[in-house]
């Protein structure tokens, strides 16, 4: 009886609340708004909502982290060490970091789906454009977020970003100083990126996200494309409304359950990874005077870093400045130049080609960036005797020269050393000592000249060592005569 009473009491509170707010009169129609019956394609619709769910997770974990993170250039690193040292702090950091990756992946996949399906066409052009804004804002969050880790890589990322901005014509110097928040990395630098990451970019995201979602409701979610059913702006709205009338299903719960299942899968994976793999390790402290640093971007920018490293040198400034600009222009122009016509990717086969190219570029250059063949391996140890083959004499001395003169940092021998220059494991098979001597003296685009920087004795030892690098060991006399 009393249970009945309390239930009635709760109901009366709800009725009062609903009466004075009118919540049910807009929330219920909103939840139950009709969406196209997507049939076999229904699972393609979960990408946008999953991006939104992960964004909410990022807000929650971000607030949790901000409650302990100290956005001070001198103390951020210690506060992160503290957070990572607590059991749950480490998990929250992990979720936030994997969430960042998930955001980038999901928003990318969502954009690819919308592009392949031609869903950016009339009347959803603004949906695409707000989405493009959100894509760049998410990338901005990813960059500033990595920076807030404020370890050595964080500090050098700011310097590299400033140097890249410095290439801009006319305002380059000013832009670089603006990014550094002064003449050097210092007290003001981190605060600026903290404000960007925590207030400014999220505020813009909220704005564009609200607009984006409003447009989804206003224009309706796009129906799966069909070959031979082009978009005609004159008739589309009437046709779409008729389609919803004929075979629309209520978003809640007919479509929403898939969003829930996929969202749970994504967030569940993030949490499991956060617990098992943990957050990204902190590097050395953010001390710009520690010069033992090889800063690398996170995976989502690794492809861009790799691209900048392999393009011809003369084009570098153009790519740094015009590359991102061109990307924005192309993405913005897309719905404006192609607002109608066929939506089906089977009638726009080049769309598959473009997507395949983008995915290939990110995968290929991302892998290349991980390997970073252009970076010398400055921690390469001296070649062990097992590789050199002897512990005394010119060959052993030459192996020492090979390490001491920095050759090994760029040239690999039997698995030791860098891969910036050619592998010299079998150098003796490919070049004569005279050819080697010429190269060592003259240098090349990517190799310094050692003219005046190597003694005759060192050179003769080095040549003896290099000549001994053969598939089949040469008779000992030939190497030593060659060296002479």
């Amino acid at each position, binding site marked *: 009886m009393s249970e009945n009473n309390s239930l009635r009491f709760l109901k009366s509170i709800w009725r009062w609340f609903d009466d004075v707010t009118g919540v049910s009169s807009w929330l219920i129609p909103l939840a139950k708004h009709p969406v196209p019956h997507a049939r076999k394609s229904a699972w393609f619709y979960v990408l946008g909502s999953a991006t939104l769910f992960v964004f909410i997770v990022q807000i929650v974990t971000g607030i949790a982290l901000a409650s302990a993170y100290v956005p001070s250039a001198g103390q951020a690193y210690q506060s992160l060490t503290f957070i990572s040292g607590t059991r749950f702090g480490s998990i929250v950091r992990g979720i936030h970091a994997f969430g960042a990756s998930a955001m980038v992946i999901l928003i990318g996949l969502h954009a690819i789906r919308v592009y392949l399906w031609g869903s950016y066409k009339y009347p959803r052009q603004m949906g695409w454009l707000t989405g493009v804004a959100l894509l760049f804002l998410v990338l901005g969050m990813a960059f500033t977020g990595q920076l807030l880790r404020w370890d050595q890589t964080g500090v050098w990322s700011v310097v590299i970003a400033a140097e890249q901005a410095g290439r801009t014509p006319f305002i380059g110097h000013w832009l670089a100083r603006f990014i550094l928040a002064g003449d050097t990395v210092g007290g003001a630098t981190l605060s600026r990126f903290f404000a960007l990451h925590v207030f400014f970019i999220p505020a813009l995201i909220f704005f564009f996200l609200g607009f984006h979602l409003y447009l989804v409701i206003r224009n309706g979610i796009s129906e799966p494309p069909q070959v031979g059913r082009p978009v005609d702006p004159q008739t589309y709205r009437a046709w779409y409304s008729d389609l919803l009338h004929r075979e629309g299903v209520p978003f809640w719960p007919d479509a929403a359950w898939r969003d829930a299942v996929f969202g749970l899968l994504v967030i569940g994976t993030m949490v499991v990874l956060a617990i098992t793999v943990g957050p990204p390790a902190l590097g050395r402290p953010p001390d710009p005077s520690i010069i033992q640093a*090889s800063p690398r971007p996170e995976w989502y920018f690794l492809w861009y870093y790799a691209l900048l490293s392999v393009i011809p040198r003369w084009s570098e400034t153009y790519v740094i400045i015009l590359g991102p600009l061109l990307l924005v222009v192309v993405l913005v122009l897309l719905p404006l130049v192609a607002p109608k016509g066929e939506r089906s990717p089977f009638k726009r086969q080049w769309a598959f080609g473009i997507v395949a190219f983008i995915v290939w570029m990110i995968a290929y250059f991302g892998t290349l960036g991980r390997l970073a063949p252009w970076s010398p391996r400055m921690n390469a140890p001296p070649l062990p005797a097992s590789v050199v083959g002897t512990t005394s004499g010119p060959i052993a001395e030459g192996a020492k020269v090979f390490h001491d003169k920095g050759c090994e940092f760029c040239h690999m021998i039997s698995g030791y050393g860098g891969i910036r220059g050619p592998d010299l494991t079998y150098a003796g098979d490919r070049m004569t000592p005279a050819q080697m001597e010429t190269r060592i003296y003259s240098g090349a685009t990517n190799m310094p000249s050692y003219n005046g920087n190597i003694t005759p004795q060192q050179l003769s030892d080095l040549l003896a060592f290099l000549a001994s690098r053969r598939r089949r060991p040469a008779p000992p006399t030939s190497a030593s005569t060659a060296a002479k």
Partner: protein
Amino acid sequence: MTTDIERASECAACDETRRRFLSRLTLMLGSIVAAIVAIPCVGFLLGLRKVPRVWRTVGKLNDFQVGSTVNVAFLDSSPLPWAGVTARSAAWLRRISRSDFIAFSVNCTHLGCPVRWLPTANLFMCPCHGGVYYANGDVASGPPPRPLRRYPVRVQNDEVQILASPVPITTEKI
């Protein structure tokens, strides 16, 4: 009541003018408010701290051997109290004679990564893209577009001092 309606209908034209004036006034007042708040905010954000360049002592004259190139750390020109270790800067310092020194910026002129001095090879090498500089700072190979920047050095009262300078930014020559 009736007089109100009459007046309204009598002067529909003045209403129109009045409303146009009021909407313009509202928009104008709003813009003024936005501007007086935005100007100091944007000015603060864009305004860069002008810092004096100061000489920083990096060691005693006797700490440095003629011919050797060593890494020295010093505080930047105007460390903020909360800057912690980020206020530190570094340079490669070489003593070339009894009283002469050269100080190289550690920043590669390509993208600013910290270059390392290889004493046995007599070269500076950058770990990012393999830029190499000769001992005098000239580009030996790789992507750097110009020689390593040098900082002014002086010896005063037996102390070696470097002029703490801004991070060198390679800009395009136009």
